[in-house]
């Protein structure tokens, strides 16, 4: 849709004029990082960090302290415990360790399946010539517009009729289907960037489309796959709506997000549980995100965001 990062060749500075522009550039830069500008930047950075930090501290304080005083008193009166995590992970009423497994079991197939399908579809749209190709591609592209809410009631009916209701299959299928339009669009963009001569040369050598796909294109597409993979992983792990709709009543299937949201309703003032629970739910996406941030940003810039 948009390429927000056209590559610009840096302009080498001319020898004769280095003196004046440099000085001006330096002055401009100083002005940009003026005290007012720095203050605004620091205020924003602090506002964006403190809420999470406060809950993290809370998750490590004893239950009684959390009830009696704010988390900021931790710095004057540090009391540290892992009891909250123990309670939320293995406690009878919460059992987040099981939900953690559910989240993992939900997420992996919901990332692998749509990426594979989308890669094949994107290949067909990019490199196989057939009648109606453009019309079909535009149709798939346009499906990105459909809000998933529009599909939920009939899909649930289909799953109930098919005897799948309340199993992992409903969630795997739903996430895979919902991911396809955006995945095909993004991967198609990346695939089009590969030089046609590469594909044509392989075809001339007598390789069929399946061989070209696996031997020529797949190795070149690793960064694109990583980009969409991170994206889809975060999306599925953090999803509430799909899991709530299709597994809301099945305790063996529900992921962390669903139970956490439920706990806010039923145990809304038990902050020792909510804080620790929130961080159990957050730790995997945070690690994935920090480790693969580069790819995530690339994916973001290559298209736009699914919603």
């Amino acid at each position, binding site marked *: 849709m948009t390429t927000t990062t056209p590559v610009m060749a840096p302009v080498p500075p001319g020898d004769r004029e280095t003196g004046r522009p440099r000085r001006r550039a330096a002055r401009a830069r100083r002005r940009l990082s003026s005290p007012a500008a720095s203050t605004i930047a620091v205020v924003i950075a602090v506002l964006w960090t403190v809420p999470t930090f406060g809950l993290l501290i809370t998750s490590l304080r004893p239950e009684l302290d959390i009830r009696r005083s704010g988390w900021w008193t931790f710095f004057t009166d540090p009391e540290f415990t892992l009891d909250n995590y123990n309670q939320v992970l293995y406690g009878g009423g919460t059992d987040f360790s099981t939900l953690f497994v559910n989240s993992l079991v939900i997420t992996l197939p919901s990332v692998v399946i749509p990426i594979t399908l989308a890669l094949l579809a994107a290949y067909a749209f990019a490199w196989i010539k057939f009648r109606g190709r453009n019309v079909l591609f535009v149709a798939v592209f346009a499906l990105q517009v459909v809000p998933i809410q529009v599909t939920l*009631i009939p899909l649930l009916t289909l799953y109930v009729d098919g005897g799948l209701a309340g199993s992992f299959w409903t969630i795997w299928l739903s996430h895979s289907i919902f991911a396809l339009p955006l995945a095909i669009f993004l991967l198609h963009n990346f695939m089009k960037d590969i030089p046609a001569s590469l594909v044509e040369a392989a075809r001339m050598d007598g390789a069929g489309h399946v061989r070209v796909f696996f031997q020529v294109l797949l190795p070149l597409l690793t960064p694109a796959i990583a980009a969409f993979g991170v994206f889809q992983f975060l999306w599925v792990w953090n999803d509430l709506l799909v899991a709530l709709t299709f597994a809301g009543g099945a305790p063996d299937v529900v992921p962390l997000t669903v139970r956490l949201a439920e706990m806010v309703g039923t145990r809304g003032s038990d902050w020792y549980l909510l804080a620790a629970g929130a961080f159990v739910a957050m730790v995997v996406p945070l690690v994935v995100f920090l480790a693969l941030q580069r790819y995530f940003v690339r994916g973001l810039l290559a298209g736009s965001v699914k919603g």
Partner: protein
Amino acid sequence: MQWFLEANSVGHKIALMVFAILLFAVVMGGILLAVDRPKRVPTWVVVAGFLGPTLALLLLGLVYPALETVRGSFYDRRGEEFIGFDNYVTVFTEDGFQTVLRNTVLWVVLVPVITTALGLVYAYLVDRTRFESLAKALVFLPMAISMVGAGVIWRFVYEFRPDQPGVNQIGLLNQALVLFGIEPQQFLIDAPSNTFYLIVVMIWIQAGFAMTVLSAAIKAIPDDVVEAARLDGVSGVQMFRYVTVPSIRPALVVVLTTVAIVTLKVFDIVRTMTGGNFATSVVANEFYTQAFRQFNFGLGAALAVLLFILVIPIIAYNVRQLRLSEEIR
């Protein structure tokens, strides 16, 4: 059969997951092998192998359900009796839904505008400074947190304790109020301001996205343009106003419309923080409540269709703006 549907131990669940992935791999592998015979295969067979499973899933899981929902929106709560536009009339006339619509408008206007403005200013301020990557990472991090997690984080910021001697505030915001001698507030309960406190959470999540895209756009502004402006003696604020903002206009439109669409469908934040009570509900949350809590399928379907219809003008605007900017180039 039971084994495939009900997994209740950790080992069983993981086995089922591996089975699902393997099943998928075997089916797809079989299809690809079938179309990759050494003999000449007609193109349509190859295309069917590459595209067939995807198109089948899209038809079954997106196209058919969407059409079915549109149909259902004209039927009563059990989907049995045709009632014309009654569901839509309810959505647009009943008092409760007036609040829902008003809230949705507030979200869709405020979140994109404030998010984009904040993201732009922040991206501009930290651009080419020494701590740029750290500064960006801090604002970007909420993107990795689920909206449910963000809801929990911010509920704690807004936490209220009655204003009595011996009771300490444990929510950061109320503690700040108390420090300034103001009475603590029930931020999430007092309407209509509570909607604004929920909107803050969405801005907090989305600002990282706006910042990232806009920062990339700022870096893509040609050096000679910036240099020329500097030679003309343009100040920092003027540079921002007359060089930076016009140069990244297409990126601004993309960010505004993308955030608007995500915001229109916001559900998790409202569900987690207030459950849609205290006059904070929005269309996407009301859809869930009507369809899956009240079991009024007709009304739920009408709300879903309304979401769909509201997305269309935003996309149309986006496409138009992109066309315009391409023409200029």
